[in-house]
């Protein structure tokens, strides 16, 4: 019985209660008519009827009629709290329930015909982190792998014969966003023959317009050389064109804003790569191989770049070079000797100048007074030459 909210509701409820009480108390001889009580002394019917005993009083009915519980109260004789899941005492209750249910499903529908996994509808399954976030439990990776195996086996059931139960069970493991279903969107080429691409890196954003041409690059109205002082930045900005051998086949007009030069250069890399993709979609694998379609570098706090070892091989501009680590020390305390970046490309046209900042790589090798830079060169001879050069270039 619920408690009536309005006063009118309450009064009607009370009336009905009252009526039920009266009717239970008054015997058949006492009748209630129009709310007034009257005792009739005359028999209503003319003929004599055999005297019958009153029916037995049903005490249970009367007891049930009288509510002992107030409106809104709980009328419960037996109640106890029980766990909902049989895995209540396990650390991963929900996951265990899911897993056992899947196992049961597999056992039930083991004999349904399956198709090769490659022929099934392509589905992106939730990864461990997604699933952990969903169930909020510290699911073990090894157990989740086993679970996914069952999921994939169930997914192999022929789609026309797959029971609805299986479909709903698998739904828990599919990602909400299915990348395959979206299809590929190719940026259009506008009426001037331009394509547009956007890129972001650190705090920088860049947008590049690519049009067929002869290799001119304008960034914020300046040429590449004017805009980027560092050779590394210049190279990385047009890396997508460079890596695919399209440097002299397109003109770039780009805007870059926010952040520093490195960020802008890398943002431009992505922007130009995307714009190039719109012109030539077939270049996607090549660009992907060079990691130019996505910024795959670890974010801050991730694993640090490893220190290259002596004699380690590296490819630079399609050529294999041998690294030799030589430390050049110069006595003046300058963190960014600008001359180095200007001079090095002139001296070493073929080698890759590699500036390894000791702080960035977490190697505490610098002394407080002498700032050490490590330069990778391909030739000891040149290295000596460079050393002499630097020692002769002390600032006045």
């Amino acid at each position: 019985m619920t408690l009536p909210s309005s006063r009118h509701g309450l009064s009607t409820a009370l009336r009905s209660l009252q009526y039920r009480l009266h009717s239970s108390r008054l015997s058949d001889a006492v009748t209630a008519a129009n709310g007034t009580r009257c005792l009739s002394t005359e028999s209503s019917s003319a003929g004599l009827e055999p005297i019958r005993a009153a029916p037995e009083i049903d005490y249970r009915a009367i007891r049930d009629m009288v509510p002992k519980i107030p409106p809104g109260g709980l009328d419960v004789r037996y109640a106890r709290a029980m766990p909902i899941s049989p895995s209540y005492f396990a650390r991963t209750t929900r996951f265990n329930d899911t897993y056992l249910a899947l196992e049961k499903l597999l056992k039930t529908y083991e004999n349904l015909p399956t198709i090769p996994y490659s022929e099934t509808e392509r589905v992106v399954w939730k990864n461990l982190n997604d699933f952990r976030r969903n169930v909020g439990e510290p699911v073990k990776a090894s157990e989740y792998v086993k679970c996914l195996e069952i999921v994939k086996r169930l997914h192999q059931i022929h789609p026309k014969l797959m029971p609805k139960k299986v479909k709903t069970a698998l739904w828990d493991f599919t990602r909400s966003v299915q990348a395959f279903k979206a299809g590929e969107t190719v940026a259009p080429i506008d009426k001037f023959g331009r394509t547009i691409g956007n890129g972001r890196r650190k705090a920088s954003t860049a947008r590049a317009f690519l049009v067929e041409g002869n290799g001119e690059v304008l960034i914020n109205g300046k040429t590449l050389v004017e805009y980027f002082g560092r050779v590394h930045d210049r190279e990385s900005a047009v890396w997508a064109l460079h890596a695919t051998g399209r440097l002299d086949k397109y003109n770039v007009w780009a805007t870059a804003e926010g952040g520093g030069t490195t960020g802008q250069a890398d943002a431009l890399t992505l922007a130009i790569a995307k714009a190039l993709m719109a012109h030539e979609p077939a270049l996607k694998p090549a660009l992907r191989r060079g990691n130019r379609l996505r910024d795959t570098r670890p974010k801050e706090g991730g694993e640090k770049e490893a220190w290259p070892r002596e004699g380690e091989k590296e490819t630079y501009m399609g050529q294999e070079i041998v690294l030799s680590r030589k430390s050049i020390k110069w006595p003046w305390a300058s963190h960014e000797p600008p001359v180095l970046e200007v001079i090095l490309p002139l001296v070493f046209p073929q080698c890759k100048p590699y500036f390894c900042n000791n702080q960035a790589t977490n190697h505490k090798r610098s002394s407080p007074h002498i700032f050490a830079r490590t330069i990778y060169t391909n030739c000891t001879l040149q290295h000596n030459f460079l050393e002499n050069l630097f020692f002769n270039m002390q600032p006045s």
Partner: protein
Amino acid sequence: MIIRNFGVRHGRRVLAAPAPRSFLRALSIRTPTTTVADPEAAPVSATQAAADARKRAVLLKAEIDRLPEEFRKYEAYQEQTKSLGSKLKFRYLPDEVLKRPPHDVTLEDLMAAQAHMGHHTSQWNPANSRYIYGEREGIHIISLETTAAHLRRAANVVESVAYHAGLILFVGNRKGHRPIVVRMAELAGACHLYQKWTPGAITNKDVILASGELRVVDELDRTLDGFDAFLRDSRPVSPDLVICLNPVENYPLLHECGLASIPTIGIIDTDADPTWVTYQIPANDDSLRSVALIAGVLGRAGERGRQRRLADAAEGKVAWTKPHAVQAFIQNHNSTCRSEALAKLEELAREGKLKVGEAEEIKQSFTEESEEEIKAQLGKRSE
């Protein structure tokens, strides 16, 4: 310098370039193995290979499309020929003991399940000497008569706990225990644990099991409504009986049970400490067959107890009472509702919408409390 650079550049290139193949072949000491091309086989061109691949894909797709119809035919055929052939009366199925666990065991069953095999004699725990029948081939042999007797006693305990609506927990966290504990928990309407026991899930349950979900059930195990507030504030539950299939690895659990006075049943091998559990079942705990058999008997006992409880409850016979927390919640809730209703009645009476007698009558109708208590409550209200 120019010459030097030239030498550096081009000299390296020459060295870096891989040696020509013909040269390598000349160096090789292995006899060249040339496959003689089948003169009748036509050379396969790239386009031809692609065409073949396409053809194969089409064929595969057609085969996949045919599958449902073929499966239906297969099923119909199976149905038709079901009654044909001979019938095997009995054959050994490894998971038979899980599918249909026995209600009781014979000594032969136990022997067949290798329940009598103990550990190497050097590994024994002398406290188990009364369960040990003898020594053979360097291992102790457990007395199966003792095993059977202890198993029946434990089964009685499980049945009784299930009959009194206790919460039973089956624990077995060795490799291969999962299907056993899951099945037995399913039979007995109990909980199972096949992973590591979280230390503190009994002694520190308010923290460890805080996120565990509960429901309130009545005598017929139907979920009751109206207990949301109770479930929000109630403490997590602890098991009333713990059945452990491998006590050797579960000391933290058994210790907690001891601290919380929760009875435990355990399979005690000759190397285990029998004092860790309340009700010992001396048997081999390393054989999955032995463990499955013993757990099966206990699961069946739980099932019997549960069925008996539900059957009695349907006839109005209930052997358990409300826990104190639930009782207190219901009383609190009802007294709140009662005072609210009385307040409304009072309000109606003040406004003259009820006659004097009527109000009193209604009050008595929905209260179990005496007149004095009502008056006291009304007095409290008016203050």
